[in-house]
């Protein structure tokens, strides 16, 4: 790994000031550090957010669950508040990577990296999340802009993610057996007015499947989407799964998720 200068500022303002075009924020580092070790990324400055206490924690209000950026996956998975308000979200967090990754990895790190196979982005999309940064609030749909890309600007960092509590929800993942990343992950959330079906792992970026969402909005049942043809165009094809296989999994896992709701 190439050398860098390590910083651990105590507040968001100082963290933001240290940021430049050759810096990275560290929030667990479960992707950042392996990427640096493999030579896929190198930075002059690594800005660790661990000392900024206000970035960690879980708050549940009447309608929303707000999770601080540096809250670890294991904490979300074990949170009684999350389990009560949005059990699907606790389940999602409890199945990310492996136990040791969950003890270090954070929600802010996951969504800021926006890996096309990461689990959390699908929850953000399906649960109409609002991403709170040190500069503004961004709707999930506008936050995830492309493969490993987000709407975050230089010096901007995620402070918290605010999820809308749905009536029902479930997340179903077909994990890559080695990395546990989603070959396909489908998050189905039934809100008062409509249903969101968010898909991760299939394309270059998380997205809402509009057809599945529409069908389920008018009739929330497995039969409503039975036999629906999910198009494979634009889907990833790799050694683990072809685009056609992924398309089939999207439809299958959407049904599984509806069934589990």
């Amino acid at each position, binding site marked *: 790994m*190439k050398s860098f200068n390590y910083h651990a500022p105590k507040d968001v303002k100082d963290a933001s000031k240290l940021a430049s075009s050759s810096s990275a924020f560290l929030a667990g580092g479960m992707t950042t550090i392996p990427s640096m*070790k493999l030579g896929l990324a190198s930075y002059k400055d690594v800005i660790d957010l661990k000392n900024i206490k206000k970035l960690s924690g879980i708050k549940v209000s009447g309608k929303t669950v707000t999770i601080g950026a540096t809250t670890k996956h294991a904490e979300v998975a074990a949170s009684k508040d999350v389990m009560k308000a949005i059990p699907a979200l606790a389940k999602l967090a409890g199945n990310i990577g492996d136990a040791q990754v969950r003890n270090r990895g954070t929600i802010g790190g996951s969504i800021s990296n926006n890996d096309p196979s990461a689990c959390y982005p699908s929850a953000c999309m399906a649960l109409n999340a609002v991403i709170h940064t040190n500069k503004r609030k961004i709707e999930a749909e506008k936050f995830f802009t492309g493969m490993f890309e987000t709407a975050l600007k230089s010096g901007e960092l995620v402070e918290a993610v605010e999820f809308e509590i749905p009536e029902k929800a479930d997340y179903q993942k077909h994990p890559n057996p080695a990395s546990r990343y989603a070959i396909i992950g489908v998050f189905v959330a039934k809100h008062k007015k409509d249903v969101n079906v968010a898909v991760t792992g299939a394309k270059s970026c998380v997205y809402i499947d509009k057809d599945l969402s529409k069908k389920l909005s008018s009739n929330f049942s497995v039969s409503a989407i039975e036999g629906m043809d999910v198009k494979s165009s634009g889907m990833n094809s790799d050694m683990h799964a072809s685009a056609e296989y992924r398309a089939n999994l999207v439809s299958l896992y959407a049904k599984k998720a509806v069934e589990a709701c």
Partner: protein
Amino acid sequence: MTKVTLEVNGKKFSKEVPDHTLLSVFLRDNLNLTGTHVGCDTSQCGACVVHVNGKSIKSCSTLAADIEGSKVTTIEGLAKDGRLHPMQAAFKKTHGLQCGYCTPGMVMSAVDLLQTKKNPSDQEIREWLEGNICRCTGYQNIVAAVKEAATKM
């Protein structure tokens, strides 16, 4: 360079190390605690698992500076007064190892599991050990070792 102070296996250590020093490197090269192994070095195999403040983590993907001031337990810190830790004894008894390379990580990971779940099922053990890869025994005897240890811990 940065000064990192850690309490490792009950003893305090302070070292000046380059900022990008990984915890695995700090333990192996600076403290000569070579029981913590580095296998894949891409955080998939789990040979490098140690405990930081009681929780299992992968030391090859953690900066030493990031855990400044923490308490670290490595495989060398498990045996007390010359007696194997119940998990180590169980691995020995059930032959839960062959070449032994993955074993320190397996043991550290399994000890963490039993801290939170006293009597895990086979399925729970296998799920928990997802982040630990063994390429010689298969996992039968490793699972048997964790179950054996669960009766002693």
